[in-house]
């Protein structure tokens, strides 16, 4: 886990089981946000949220052990003030509705995260 120095910018916790994706997300969002941590496991993500108190948690929907929806639900229970943005490989109406139903701030397609994710994060703040 990697902790970045804090500032007035949004504090992010990134959750994805693919290291390559995490790295790329950090590179992409780093200039505009403070990435307070990256985790590759859903279970760890809930605990890290409580400990790190990020403004936004970006969670990959499809993960072993605990998938993104479950992570989102638990974070919303334990830390209701933290916004959760779900990333999905493919976003359809069903995923969108299910994600929003459990309290996700947004459900965004991974490949569109440049165009949609940053505005979404910034929109949460």
């Amino acid at each position, binding site marked *: 886990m990697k902790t970045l120095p804090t500032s007035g910018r949004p504090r992010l916790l990134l959750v994805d089981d693919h290291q*390559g994706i995490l*790295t790329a*997300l950090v590179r*992409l969002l780093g200039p505009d946000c403070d990435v307070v941590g990256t985790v590759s496991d859903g279970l760890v993500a809930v605990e890290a949220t409580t400990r790190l108190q990020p403004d936004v948690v970006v969670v990959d929907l499809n993960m*072993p*052990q*605990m998938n993104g929806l479950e992570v989102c639900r638990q974070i919303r229970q334990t830390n209701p003030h933290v916004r959760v943005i779900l990333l999905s*490989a493919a976003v359809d109406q069903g995923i969108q509705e299910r994600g929003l139903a459990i309290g996700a701030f947004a459900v965004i397609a991974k*490949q569109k*995260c440049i165009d949609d994710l940053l505005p979404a994060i910034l929109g949460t703040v």
Partner: protein
Amino acid sequence: MHRRPARPQVLGLGLMVAALLLSCTVVSAQPPHVRTVVAVHWSTEDFPSNPPVDAAIAAAFRERPDLSVDYFAEYLESDRFPGDRASLALRDYIGRKYDGRRIDLVVAIAEPSLQFVLRYRDELFPGAPIVYTSNAAASTNALSTQGLAGVTTIDGYRETVELALRLHPSTARLFVVAHAPNLSYEDVLREELAPIAQRIEVSYINEAVLPRLLASVEAVPPGSLILYIRHSREEPGNRLFPSEVARLVAEASAVPVYGIFDTHIGTGLVGGFVRDAKTTGTRVGSIALRILDGARPEDISVEPVPLRPMFDWRQLQRWGIDVSRLPAGADIRFRVPTTWELYWRYIVGALVLTVIQGVIIGALVIERARRRQSQTRYNLASAAGGVGVWDWNLATNEIYVDPFLKHILGYADHEIRNYIDDWGRLVHPDDAPMVMAQAQQAIEGTRPTYEVEHRMLHRDGSVRWFLARGSVVFKHGRAAQFAGTDTDITDRKTSQQVLEQTQAELTRVSRLTALGEFAATIAHEVRQPLTAITLNAKACLRWLREATPDLAEMRAALEDVVDAGERANELVDRNRELFRQRSVKNEPLDINDVVRDVAALARPRLQSNSVVLTASSTPGLPLVNGDRIELQQVLLNLVGNSIDATEAVDAGSRRVEISTVLLTDGRVKVSVRDNGVGFENVDMKRLFSFSYTTKPSGTGVGLSLSRSIVEAHGGRLWPEPNPEGGAIFSFTLPVQELAVAAPPTAAPGAVEVA
């Protein structure tokens, strides 16, 4: 046989003959033992009763050759020459004829002869004993004379009439026909037939003139009988014997005619108790012999010659008289032999021949039927089995081909000539060289049997498959004949091909079905590196827009892009083959590699179902021979089943484990173990049946196909319950013989891949 003297009708001739005989007697002295017997008949030589009497007497003498009897017959002919004239002439004749010859015995036939003999006895036959026949009805006053013996002849008037009345019970009248110029029968007859006359009316036809006689006979009313005694004609010329008149009477009569003389039987009379000439002659001969043997004539009693019941068979038939009603010992003459009696030998012969012929024909018919049945059976069997025979004469190249075989190819029997070239032309061109080569080898003897599957061309251009079998017959060391069968195996071949195609198709479809479940998640897998690439590339673009880009960061991002791209390629490569239609390979492979492939392929599904997969591979396993993709498919299928089976378990504790192990017998065992529902609600008997499934959307193909694949690899696939709950599916594979074990890889004992 007696010697016949010349007839005395011409005196001169008789004298000459007598002289001749006399001279013979003088010249050659007769041996002393020769006896001379002279018979004197009352009538002419041709009188019907004379020949049988003479024959019987002569026969009696012939019976005694030791007595050496010379028998002569002379004829008084008193009936033709009435008065003394004939007697005197005969006296002179005999006197001269037998002059100097001792006559040892004289036979006198009938009363006139006896009178003649007695009259001239001393003159002609001095001292010679006399044997006579005499009618008992006639008076013989001279019978006391010394040296006489004889028989009496009796007439069966009454006996015959009684007999006739028995045979014709409804007879109302009796007509008696009797006429002789010098004899009066009627008195005798009236006395004899008196008892008869008391029962029925008896009339007499004593008519001298023949036409009148016959007219009277014709007038005899029905229900009558006629007793024909005799009829001697008085008119000169056209002499008729009584027997000839009997014939005329019988012809004229409308009623049965009976008679009392044997010589009349056969002329049309029914029969009667008759005086029998032959019996009379035999009796006379017998007495003569006794006398010649030394018996005294006086000691021989005079006995009557018994009457003989004699019948004409034809007349019995005509009048419907049953033979059984005749008196015992009846002499039935003129029996017309039946066709059977005449020709029984021919009939029996013909019957035997017919029977033999019949038997032969029957046997042939049966044999033919049997053959036909056999042929029918053969044809049926031939058609049913699709088998036909062929027989190739190697000397002439003629070949008999079962018409059935020609029929299979769409030809009538006559449409293909029976020569090997004509038949061979129908062999599929691609197969012809192979077929001819094998046939050649069989003919040359280098191949013991000829058995080849080949194609034949049907008339319509289609192809039929034949299994040809045959063997060569060698004669005198040379191949003479090549015969065998062709079996139509087209259906088998076709179904085999169809089956193979179907199986291949099924395998592919099944694989696609099985893989289809993974396909979506595989796309996800590939998407990960693609997403990484995109994100990194976009990050770089952002940095490039800044005044002083951090080149080191950009380099790191681009390196990640390259890595992700390569990983994506890898994934695509690994998955692409699974979806391709391909031929089955048989190559040495490490089963642990297959396990790794499957762990990677199954990962997306495992993840989406929150199942943890553990692979416990034993390193350094011997290589197995097989098809990597097919074995992947088996393992993927088993893992897929396990994933499904764990659905009922809590998401956090769903586990699937793949393990590989080397068995002590050298085989490799692969097991897939899960903690799912196990075999509850599973029909174990049908578990591997095609289309058996417990899943709502299952096809039931997976396990069946998996087992087929494993068995095709020489292995075995079986299920067993997991002692810790759930199921275990294991399969074994034989290891490659002499194969060098793959070098131990760096694979860990247990790698968590998901």
